[in-house]
């Protein structure tokens, strides 16, 4: 190992045969397959990877996992870039390119680091205390400039993300010793098992620690456990897969990383699993906790377990000379492994007076210098640690080193457990919060405060067996007692700086630069609740969500406020456990698949005939059919005039078709509709309103009596699905005694409407057994028969004001029927008309459009149906509400027509304009009505509009002011019918 070389010559789980080149901050480096970006940079001797958020201090890799708080980088070049990527979790691949964030001009020379000098003037929450004068607006752009971490990409993401739903008996989260022994136990019982781990390789702590199980290296045990599990048909093992959220009723969300390379369109980069587990085993392990001391954030200061991981797993050397600083015996393993790897271990600084444990003895026997009962007082080295100052016997000596491996004990990874509402208890001995036993969640291993391998294995077995038993499987397996050697763990001594006396620049939260001094200030200012404290100081609010900082912070807060740690408690744990890419959450349902859409049976005809589609609810409907060179307006006008003067054809398939039959059908509908149902004769059609129980008009549609106690309802297109559910709801919940059947047949039928003065002529030209003459088939009646050899149902109802035939045929004949009619109509000059034309046609005739001309306050009387509503004496849905005070008083918004005064050619009132009045001392404008439908009528060559107006019926003939976007126009209040007031034409 030369001076420049930070890679051990042997060992590690990297593939030295497969070099990988990548770039960091523009410079090219080489690593090996199996490296993470962090390990590869370490092996290249790169120490400064980032700058901190507030003071822009240089920072290096701190951990080897998801808890990373420093090495958070920008991946790929703008604009196709991805911010906030953890270098510790990212496997490198050829061509990878990464950058430091939050620094300028470079990570080594960052101009904003001057902020560090002013830190005393930037206490926590300083922004609440200033920038108020002249206004926040004035300072905000400046402050914002310093905010944020990565840069958002500016281009569309072309990667795909997929998902999978899955069910299992036992889900095991965590692929360490505990997780695997749980999975094996559960799988043996025959249960369906899923095991997930967020890392590339399974094994958890086994990948860094030299351990033996029953005499064989733990890695061999792991290998055999993996193989054993793979052999079961019912087991799924997922690596690079994080359980991010634990939701109601045992639903867990897993995010699986599939590949890194900028993949082709068909290869999803991530998969979100939504798992419903009967039982859950959490074996999420523990995260090592840093120690808090002055200048504890320098590049080269790392978690002790991480140092071990880099050395053992990646054969990467964080530095040539190491000091270990610990309050427990576990970190001695770092000294031992480093020593064995040939790295100089300058000393182990142990806060405890008399360190004990197997690893302590081993370190001693290797001749490693142990300074017990001591502390680190300070550190030096701006862009990389150079030396540490050690308190105690040797009179505060400075020891040179490049790496300080710290361990303040372990924090069980309780996140998922707590997300699900699990309660925590504080363990004094190990100074950490542990899960309490819970019903359908089984915790195991370090998560449970089990620190030795043997205990973890046993705990895992127990959890796996319990879980499968509770899921209904009998596990007859007698747990074996793994022999992991005689390990003595030693104890742990919590060490916290004394806030009152010690320097302020000791970092608690690295990412957001929260220091010991900040804890003190927040406490002084009464931010005593841990939740207030978090928000005021921003501890734990950055991308790592405080994985390494939260426990130190709350312990310090407890100390400074003289409370016990359990009384301070933790902040709330929330999903996701680690951040989740938006694309993964969106899945396939973006772009054209964003929301389901519906096509009408004659869709392809419209498409082929130049129909311009628009979304009407979920439907794709042609708005109009412009011919080559024709504008939309011109097309619509042509379509309207064709319907008024000749014949047009319209697809009305979205209309609902619901049949209600059975002995009580008439009674049922009589309770549903506002209008009388009993008085309708067979073969006849009636227009009727449906109200909700608050008396508000919900739908207007027609219904037809097919036979005694057999009705066909045609709710409007917009309400078709809702009305079907509505009928079922009343039948099931309110009047289950009524014997009826509700058949929802809306999709079975295509509806082609032929409308216009020559509609009859056209119908009569088609081969049919139906007599279309005016006498035989009058308006508002209904016939069943055959047309063009297809069985059909035809109703004579009109939404245009012209003679209309709504022809219903089984949907698969719709397109054929339409084409045939269109062909037959060509000699008559037939035109297809779209939804735009229909809106104008119905407006000219004053036909109401529920939902547009009415809203959630409109009752029948407001639209002129008051008398009918009150005529029916028996109860129906909504009737009782019509007599509430609000519905019988003066001052309601009533349906009226408006005639724009002195219009220019083609001009009409804006839909959405208001009728205004001014009054009061300040002559303030107020709205007394609206325009709800409006157009320039090509038929009448006049602007027409309808809407609602305060006491509108008594204002007929008045000229009112209509307001839209600053402009007022006079309009006359008229009857809301403009064309064929006597309805001669429909009846023709």
């Amino acid at each position: 190992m030369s001076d420049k070389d930070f890679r051990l010559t042997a060992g590690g789980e990297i593939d030295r045969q497969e070099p990988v080149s990548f770039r960091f901050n523009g410079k090219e480096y080489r690593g090996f397959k199996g490296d993470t970006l962090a390990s590869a940079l370490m092996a290249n001797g790169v120490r400064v990877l980032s700058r901190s958020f507030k003071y822009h201090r240089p920072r290096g890799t701190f951990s080897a996992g998801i808890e990373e708080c420093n090495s958070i980088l920008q991946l790929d070049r703008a604009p196709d870039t991805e911010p906030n990527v953890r270098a510790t979790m990212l496997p490198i691949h050829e061509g990878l390119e990464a950058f430091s964030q939050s620094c300028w001009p470079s990570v080594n020379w960052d101009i904003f680091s001057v902020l560090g000098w002013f830190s005393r003037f930037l206490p926590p929450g300083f922004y609440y205390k200033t920038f108020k004068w002249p206004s926040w607006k004035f300072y905000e752009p400046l402050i914002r400039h310093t905010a944020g971490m990565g840069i958002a990409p500016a281009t569309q993401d072309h990667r795909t993300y997929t998902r999978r739903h899955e069910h299992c008996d036992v889900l095991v989260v965590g692929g360490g010793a505990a997780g695997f022994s749980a999975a094996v136990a559960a799988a043996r019982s025959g249960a369906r098992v899923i095991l997930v781990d967020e890392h590339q390789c399974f094994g958890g702590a086994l990948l860094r620690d030299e351990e033996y199980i029953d005499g064989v290296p733990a890695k061999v045990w792991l290998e055999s456990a993996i193989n054993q599990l793979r052999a079961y048909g019912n087991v799924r093992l997922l690596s690079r897969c994080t359980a991010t959220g634990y939701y109601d009723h045992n639903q867990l969300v897993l995010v699986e990383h599939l590949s890194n390379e900028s993949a082709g369109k068909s290869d999803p980069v991530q998969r979100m699993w939504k798992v419903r587990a009967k039982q859950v085993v959490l074996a999420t392990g523990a995260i090592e906790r840093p120690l808090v001391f002055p200048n504890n954030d320098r590049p080269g200061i790392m978690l002790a377990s991480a140092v071990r991981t880099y050395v053992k797993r990646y054969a990467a050397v964080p530095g040539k000379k190491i000091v270990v600083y610990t309050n427990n015996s576990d970190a001695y393993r770092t000294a031992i492994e480093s020593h064995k790897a040939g790295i100089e271990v300058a000393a182990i600084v142990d806060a405890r007076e008399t360190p004990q444990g197997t690893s302590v003895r081993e370190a001693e026997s290797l001749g490693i210098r142990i300074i017990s009962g001591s502390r680190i007082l300070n550190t030096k080295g701006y862009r990389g640690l150079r030396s540490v100052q050690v308190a105690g016997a040797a009179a505060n000596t400075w020891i040179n080193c490049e790496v300080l491996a710290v361990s303040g004990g372990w924090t069980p990874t309780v996140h998922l457990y707590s997300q699900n509402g699990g309660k925590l208890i504080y363990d004094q001995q190990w100074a950490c919060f542990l899960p309490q036993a819970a019903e359908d969640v089984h915790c195991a291993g370090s998560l449970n405060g089990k620190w030795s391998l043997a205990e973890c294995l046993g705990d895992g077995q127990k959890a796996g067996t319990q879980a499968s038993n509770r899921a209904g499987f009998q596990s007859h397996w007698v747990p074996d007692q793994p022999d992991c050697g005689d390990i003595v763990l030693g104890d742990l001594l919590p060490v916290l700086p004394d806030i009152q006396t010690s320097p302020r620049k000791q970092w608690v939260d690295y990412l957001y630069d929260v220091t010991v001094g900040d804890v003190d200030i927040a406490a002084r200012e009464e931010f005593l609740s841990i939740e207030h404290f978090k928000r005021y100081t921003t501890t734990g609010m950055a991308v790592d969500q405080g994985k390494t900082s939260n426990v130190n912070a709350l312990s310090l807060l407890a100390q400074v406020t003289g409370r016990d740690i359990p009384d301070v408690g933790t902040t709330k744990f929330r999903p996701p456990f680690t951040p989740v890419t938006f694309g993964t959450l969106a899945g396939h349902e973006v772009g054209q698949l964003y929301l389901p859409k519906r096509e009408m049976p004659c869709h392809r005809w419209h498409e082929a005939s130049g129909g311009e589609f628009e979304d009407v609810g979920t439907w794709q409907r042609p708005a109009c059919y412009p011919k080559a060179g024709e504008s939309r307006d011109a097309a619509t006008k042509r379509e309207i005039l064709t319907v008024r003067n000749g014949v047009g054809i319209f697809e009305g398939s979205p209309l609902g078709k619901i049949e209600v039959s059975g002995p009580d059908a008439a009674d049922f509908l009589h309770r549903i509709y506002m209008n009388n149902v009993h008085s309708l004769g067979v073969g006849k059609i009636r227009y009727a309103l449906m109200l909700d129980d608050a008396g508000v008009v919900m739908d207007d549609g027609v219904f037809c009596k097919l036979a005694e106690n057999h009705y066909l309802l045609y709710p409007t297109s917009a309400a078709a699905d809702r009305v079907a559910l509505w009928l079922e709801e009343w039948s099931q919940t309110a009047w289950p005694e009524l014997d009826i059947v509700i058949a929802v047949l809306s999709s079975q039928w295509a509806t082609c409407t032929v409308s216009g003065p020559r509609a009859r002529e056209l119908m009569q030209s088609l081969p049919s057994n139906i007599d279309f003459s005016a006498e035989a088939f009058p308006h508002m009646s209904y016939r069943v028969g055959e047309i063009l050899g297809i069985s059909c149902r035809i109703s004579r109802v009109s939404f245009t004001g012209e003679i209309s035939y709504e022809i219903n045929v089984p949907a698969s004949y719709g397109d054929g029927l339409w084409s045939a009619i269109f062909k037959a109509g060509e000699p008559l000059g037939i035109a297809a008309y779209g939804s735009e034309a229909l809106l104008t046609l119905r407006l000219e005739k004053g036909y109401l459009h529920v939902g547009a001309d009415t809203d959630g306050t409109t009752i029948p009387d407001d639209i002129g149906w008051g008398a009918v509503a009150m005529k029916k004496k028996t109860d129906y849905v909504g009737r009782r509400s019509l007599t509430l005070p609000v519905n019988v008083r003066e001052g309601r918004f009533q349906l009226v027509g408006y005639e724009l005064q002195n219009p220019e050619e083609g001009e009409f009132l804006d839909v959405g304009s208001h009728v205004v009045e001014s009054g009061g001392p300040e002559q303030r404008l107020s709205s007394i009505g609206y325009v709800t439908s409006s157009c320039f009528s090509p038929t009448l060559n006049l602007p027409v509009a309808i809407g609602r107006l305060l006491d509108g019926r008594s204002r007929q003939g008045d000229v009112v002011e209509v307001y839209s976007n600053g402009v007022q126009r006079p309009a006359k209040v008229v009857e809301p019918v403009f064309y064929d007031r006597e309805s001669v034409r429909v009846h023709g």
Partner: protein
Amino acid sequence: MLQRYSLLSLFKNGLTGNENWQPTWRSVEPKKSYDVVIVGAGGHGLATAYYLARNHGITNVAIVDKGWIGGGNTGRNTSAIRSNYFYREATDFFERSLQLYEGLGEELNYNIMLSQIGVMTLAHSEHEMEGIRRWANAIQINGVDSEFLDLEQIRKELPILNTSVNARYPVVGGFVQRRGGVARHDAIAWGYARRADELGADIIEQCEVTNLLQHGGRVTGVETSKGKINAGQVVLAVAGHSSHLAAMADIKLPITSMALQAMVSEPLKPFLNTMTVSSVCHAYVSQSDRGELVIGGSADICNSYAQRGGMPVVEENIRALVELYPCLSRLKLMRQWAGIVDITPDTCPVIGALPMSGLYINGGWGTGGFKAIPAGGETTAYTVAHDSPHPLVEAFSLERFRSGELVNEAAASGVAH
């Protein structure tokens, strides 16, 4: 005497080692009795206490909260502020609130970081644009700023928005209230608390009200986890817990409690300078001063008092966000949470007397009561002090659900915020 906050005070305190900062408020133990007990130290409860003292000289007031102040919806909302309501009653009220917000930082001597980035409502079809026109015109008529935007203007103001005509739901236009924006949620609670405390009110945390004391049809105090507290008048300002508290006096309310979720992305360098709202792509988003995107959407589907939500809404919100801003798909969700909102049938609040003498409610804020905090506090204080409703909230009495005189904003504010 209140310690004034300013650049100078920061400097001075910096020089003296930051050791002289005073408590922002005093969290105290309850006295035996108060003139007014306010239940709930959210924005509305704290503001009520402040205005009771400032405008009406009533200072023998306690604000009790079962947890920490501002820990309810005030501390967990997406902090959208606007006054673009449809009905006159609502507009006047929310406009008053916005005006108070505009001077609040100065008034409280606390930077609430009001950021008037504008709230832009998008329309995705001609038909939707018609509805929006009706809404925006109503706002203009009511004397509040609202500006129509056509597609070109929107493109210019928001180049990263997906304005392709081939989008599944292409944007066709919209309108913006420029004075709308966001404010720092926590600062509202802390700022009001600091001043209410200074003016004499007692802030009592970790004190759950477990019963309402009554005598002869009149409320006489509250039973709490810290014992009995007598009171001349009691105000319920407990948002999602309104029904639960009112039930202690056998009063039923027209309120349903539901979980409303919000979520944040990882922090990013500023790139989004407007809040957008869309009802088709049902999500609203803004970027905070710390850099994270703050995202909200619709409520979870059923009654809930659990302050957490489920995945369906998260997926729906993010999907909508990615649909509006396809370039955001590589960003990551950092945290999701929920609050319990108190939804009324007309989505307007209930403020005023309850059918028990001395008992008042400030609630029913549903998904949009953060923007209402200053006016809510001001009018509630008035209503309590005069035992008669403030003119701005006469329309929002409980009685309207008996006569049917709802203020049906549901139609106007299609998106929850």
